[in-house]
């Protein structure tokens, strides 16, 4: 069936089987391979994308169900090719990853958290990422990265307000 998805502020029409998951559709049809497959049963969070700004598991959703929503993938987090956004840069500064497989999901989850809560406590960060598994890092540097991103975003916002 033909469906039209709003992805990263653009419209894309694809022809998929109704049973195609949003994850497979993004990866195979739209070649947005930043969302990863870790379990395909809703536990690991590697497939996280934002649906209307909220983190969601693209493996648990069929592509046709995503019609009408605003879908954001990690590919939209970079301001321009070769440039890092503030959260991405903070992840690099704190080395909040190793193999990078969980990283897109972590970044999108952090993005949503910091939009709602510009000054999260450590416990709030831990809570926010608890649905995203990382097998490499033990989470320590991911939490540090998000703390750093929060601090920098607050600084950037104050500067912008001036």
């Amino acid at each position, binding site marked *: 069936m033909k469906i039209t998805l709003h992805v990263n502020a653009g419209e894309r029409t694809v022809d998929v*089987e109704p*049973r195609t998951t949003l994850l497979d559709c993004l*990866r*195979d049809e739209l*070649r*947005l*391979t*930043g*969302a*990863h*497959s*870790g*379990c*395909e*049963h809703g*536990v*690991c969070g*590697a497939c996280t994308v934002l649906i209307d700004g909220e983190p969601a598991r693209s493996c648990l959703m069929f592509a046709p169900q995503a019609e009408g929503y605003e879908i954001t*993938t*990690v*590919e939209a*987090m*970079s301001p321009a090719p070769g440039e*890092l956004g503030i959260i*991405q*840069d903070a*992840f*690099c*500064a*704190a*080395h909040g*990853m*190793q*193999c*990078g*497989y*969980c*990283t*897109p999901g972590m*970044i999108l989850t952090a993005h949503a958290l910091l939009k709602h809560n510009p000054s999260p406590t*450590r416990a709030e960060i*831990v*809570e926010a*990422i*608890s*649905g*995203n*598994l*990382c*097998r*490499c*890092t*033990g*989470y*320590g*540097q*991911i*939490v540090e990265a998000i703390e750093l991103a929060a601090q920098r975003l607050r600084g950037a916002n104050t500067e912008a307000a001036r």
Partner: protein
Amino acid sequence: MNERPKFRFVSADRRVREDRRFVAGMGKYVGDIAEAGMLHVAIVHAPYTAAKIVSFDASRALAMPGVVAVVEGEELSTNVEPLMNGLDTPKVQRYPLAVKHVRYNGEWVAAVVAQTRAQAEDAAECVDVEYEPLPFVIDAEEAYRPSSPPVHAAHGSNVLLDRTFNWGEIDEDFAASDHQLSLRVTWGRSSTVPLETFGVVAMWDPWAEVMDVRASIQMPKYADQIARAMRLPGNAVRVHYDIDVGGSYGVKRGIKHTVLACYLSMKLKQPVRLIEDRLENMSSGDAHGPDRIFDIDAAFNRDGIVRSMKMRALDNAGAYAGRAPFQLGKPIGAIVGPYKINSVRYHAVSVTSNKAVQEAVRGFGQSPTNYAIETMMDRVAEHLGMDRVEIRRRNFIRADEFPYLIPSGTRYDSGDYHTVVDKVMKHVDWPAFVAERDRLRANGAYAGIGIAACLEPSGGNSSFEPLLNPANTTTTWMESCRINVDALGNITATIHTTSSGQGHETLASTVIGEVLEFDPDSIRIVRTDSLTSLPGNSPVGSRMAVMLGGSCYLAANKLKKKLKAIAAHQFDCAPEDVDYVQGVLRAKDGRTLKWAEMVNIAHRNFHLLPEDCEPGLEVTNVYQVPTGTDLPTADGRVQMYPCHSFEFHCILVTIDPDTGKVDIPRYVIGHDCGTVINPHIVKGMTLGGIAHGLGAALMEEFVYDGEGQMMAQSFMDYLLPSSHEVPQVEIVHHCTPSPFTVMGQKGSGESGYLGAPAAISGAVNDAVRSLGIRFNRLPMRMTAISDAIAEAKSKQSN
């Protein structure tokens, strides 16, 4: 020896260059590859624990939309060689698909190839196989008995390895000791379970006659093994190393997947992709870890000195041999841990059973062994009523005793265990730490302290291979680096392996930048493929800081030497009289040649080159593992890995008596891995290793029921630690450089994981000691803990 050498880039707070592509979602994983005409594979799994395949009929599947082929084991086994065994066990044959018999529940029986994965999966359900169930064996003790049904009838028994080593005067030491005690501990079967499952894309090019392989692989000699199994010349297999691997920690060794995909691609003359789903990964990806029972006798004196140890380690290898038995061999290189135990008897037994196949897991058997040794130390302390830290202090090898030869033949390079412990004790304020536990207890909580001291052997060689398999005489275990300075003067270096998060590009550029005094960010690192690569052995055995770091260092120095020779020729002086400072060559009299001038001479002015000097600025280095060059002695002693990092865990836990949930309010680790090349990377390894160790200690297990059915069918049953479970960790650093490596570095790829299970076990046992409970088995899952507490309490109240 404890002075930290001065470096500019090494040990500095510098970013990890790989991170940029990962945060942008621009990593290139095997699942991201889309070749034109690529076919997809789904697997037909055995629904029996042991059975004979009576009939096979794929006609229904073949008639389904998109299906291109169905291949079963008989066809495959006539066209490919069996997969390699570690030991000399030729009758234990393993092919990617079961041949005539299935030997564990979930074993791969057939491959269905179709245009899409969904079509292949649909068709896989329509392959009709008839089985005749056979007797099976799940338990290792039972499998060890001669009466058990052999998993491989042709092999005659389930015993793959049964060998006793006697290192030193064991009986004399036992007789002369004041005390003895015995214990048994069990390490349940778990694994590293990376978030990315194993995947491979194989592409046979019938015109070039080359098999192109892209895989999420971390395996030594992968290309050779493919070529052997496929009966191809070595130079007809091209493994591409520029694939990002989504985590491995040892297990990403999908040789059966790869040979199957290669065969299918060759047969169908199209690219073939095989990617495990999560269930496949856990049930039949052949990637489980050690599954081991330890029986220990310890002989010790009144003062706490442990004189001798007898250890039997019985490991359940699963249905095929693979490299599982070697995971009993590697720990021989640190069989006494950080202690001066005078003699050791080690009885290593590996048996087949009707469970899934084992693969290398982080530490290659060392973490279970450390858990056993550390439990022994706790028991000795308890027996003597001695402090657990004190008993370890008394038995530690002293800093001035290195290099220290242990009974099994390995010489430990360096260490300062007492100082690391002192630093940690100071950091936690030990009296206050103990007081905090006691305060928690006084408030009614079950609180306990856990201590673990252990080693991370690093710089991996494979001395366990000739030790356990005399037919294997491998002593070479090299790593390589090539550096090229182009005609514009820019530096490019090649590395010859895939990476799975270890930051090898950062490692290589940092070391080369350090030696050549160039900003590492200006140095490009590229990855070759197996046809253009120099020899290497991949990032196993915690070896890349030592081995890739060593090779980069030596290659860069070779380049420097060449530059000096060229400059000396211009200056008309001896090369020793030329200095190299940040790319500038300087004669004693003050004359200089700048980098650009040197590049120009090397690339364009052959008439200015010294005799026998090759034009251009290209160097290669192939680096053999420091130490570890001899075959084992007749009495089974050998130098295992060259370097030994040290870690000391000191933790506080509390247990919720109703749910059995373990909380870790304080986790401190003292860590000494010599010279650190990138502090962010080492920190990440340690924190990630502790999280992984926590999983092995409290959560993760591939449980089999009595019928041989694996019960962990998803991430709902096999629990990986989330951010909720993993504590905040404090790291106390120490640096004792290794005298055997180029910059004093040691490995850290297994750090944290090697001691966390022991420390957590010690802490939980300390917490429930007052109830008379003893946990002798990992993982200690919540239900096991809450059940034990409830039972103990009801006993107490009766």
